[in-house]
């Protein structure tokens, strides 16, 4: 059972990221620079994949890190690791940018928004570095069929709902739902199998 690999959160174990975020609360500029150096590449890569334009991606990444600097208290290290939370913030911000750009209603830079929940890692994930993690996800994703891969990417990178994907692909709604669910379950199994 996949749930079995999730371990209780160990409050005594403080990650370097959590310590750096804590230092942000004291307006520590060096801590901010370290966090940026550690995670700006993966954040930028994700945002660029979503917005598809380098200058826009930099604008969004700047928003994400400024939001981190100004609202570091909104990350609760006791509830999970920092990177998934930061990635979820970046994805939400990039998707917002896409949606609002289409509506020509860009949000103000300092506008607060509902932040995503913190996401905990399963135990087997904790030792993986970023490069190995990416290689493994790509490998498993490559094992999905084309339809499953397509709908998952449309949902994740373009923020489309079931109905929007069905309209885009001109496929039945039930089929799209099935592709997404089965594709994600296959992905989960594949990730478990490669640990």
């Amino acid at each position, binding site marked *: 059972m*996949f*749930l079995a690999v*999730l371990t209780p959160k160990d409050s005594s174990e403080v990650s370097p990221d959590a310590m750096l975020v804590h230092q942000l609360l004291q*307006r520590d*500029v060096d801590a*901010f*620079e370290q966090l*940026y150096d550690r995670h*700006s*590449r*993966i954040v*930028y*890569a*994700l945002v*660029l*994949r979503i917005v598809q334009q380098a200058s826009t*991606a*930099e604008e969004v*990444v*700047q928003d994400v*890190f*400024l939001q981190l*600097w100004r609202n570091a208290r909104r990350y609760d290290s006791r509830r999970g690791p920092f990177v*998934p939370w930061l*990635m*979820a913030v970046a*994805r939400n911000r990039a*998707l917002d940018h896409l949606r609002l750009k289409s509506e020509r209603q860009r949000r103000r830079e300092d506008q607060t928004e509902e932040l*995503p*929940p913190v*996401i*905990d*890692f*399963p135990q087997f*994930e904790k030792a993986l570095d*970023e490069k190995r*993690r*990416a290689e493994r*996800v*790509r490998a498993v*994703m490559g094992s999905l069929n084309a339809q499953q891969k397509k709908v*998952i*990417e449309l*949902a*994740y*990178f373009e*923020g*489309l*709902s*079931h*109905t929007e*994907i069905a309209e885009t692909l001109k496929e039945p709604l039930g089929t799209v*739902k099935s592709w*997404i*669910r089965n594709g*994600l*379950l296959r*992905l*989960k199994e594949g*990730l478990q199998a490669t640990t």
Partner: protein
Amino acid sequence: MNNCGQFRELVEAYALGALDAEERVAFEAHLATGCKDCAQAVEEARWLVNQLAYLAPNAAPSDMLKARLMQTVRAEARAAQGSVEPKAGIPFWMWAGVAALLVLTVYSAWDARRLQKEIQTVNESAAAEFKQREQLQQELAVAKRQAHILTDTNSKKFAMWPHDTQMPKLEAMWHPELGICVMGQKVPMPSSNRALQLWLIPKAPGSKPMPSLTFWPDAEGKLVLMVENPPDVMADTKALAITEEPAGGSAQPTSAPMWVGGVS
């Protein structure tokens, strides 16, 4: 709680953000009931969805982005530090307060001194008024007494004749209880440091003249002398005499009488 079957199929799509609004609302309502199994499944699915970020092709932001960010962050950190930590030295508002206090102190001192002077002036004025009033009251009392002496039938009137015939005659009135009043016109002013002095000449043989007041006529030569308490009683007095004496008066006459008037 265990009506989860219909919702379990929605967990992954919910974590992915792919549910349409109606399904999302229904699923969140179910989560709000406290279904721990579905909450755990959602947490797991969120981790799974998060892994999709690694499908993005590798890319790196420009150095300019970091430079811009750090510039903004450093400026905000400095601003925050400046707003929390008090600046060294005395702030401007405190200097302004000290200056205002000094001005107020100087003004207060000046105003107090001004008020003190005004009070002193008013006090002096009041004292002068009081003194003048006292003087007028005394003059009024003397005038009343004179008037009484001059009109009362008990008063004895007699003339004081000058030794020098060029000198004016004086008139005297003696009331047994109110005193003596001597009046005259065109009386010459005594020489410098000299005064006129009244004497009572007793009837008893061999008695010495009794000294009374020294006095001067006014600038117009008018003479009004009032003696409230004569040194001797009218019955024992033979005559009144006036001599010129030193300004402080004499115990005994030092010059010949200028005016003499018999009392009885």
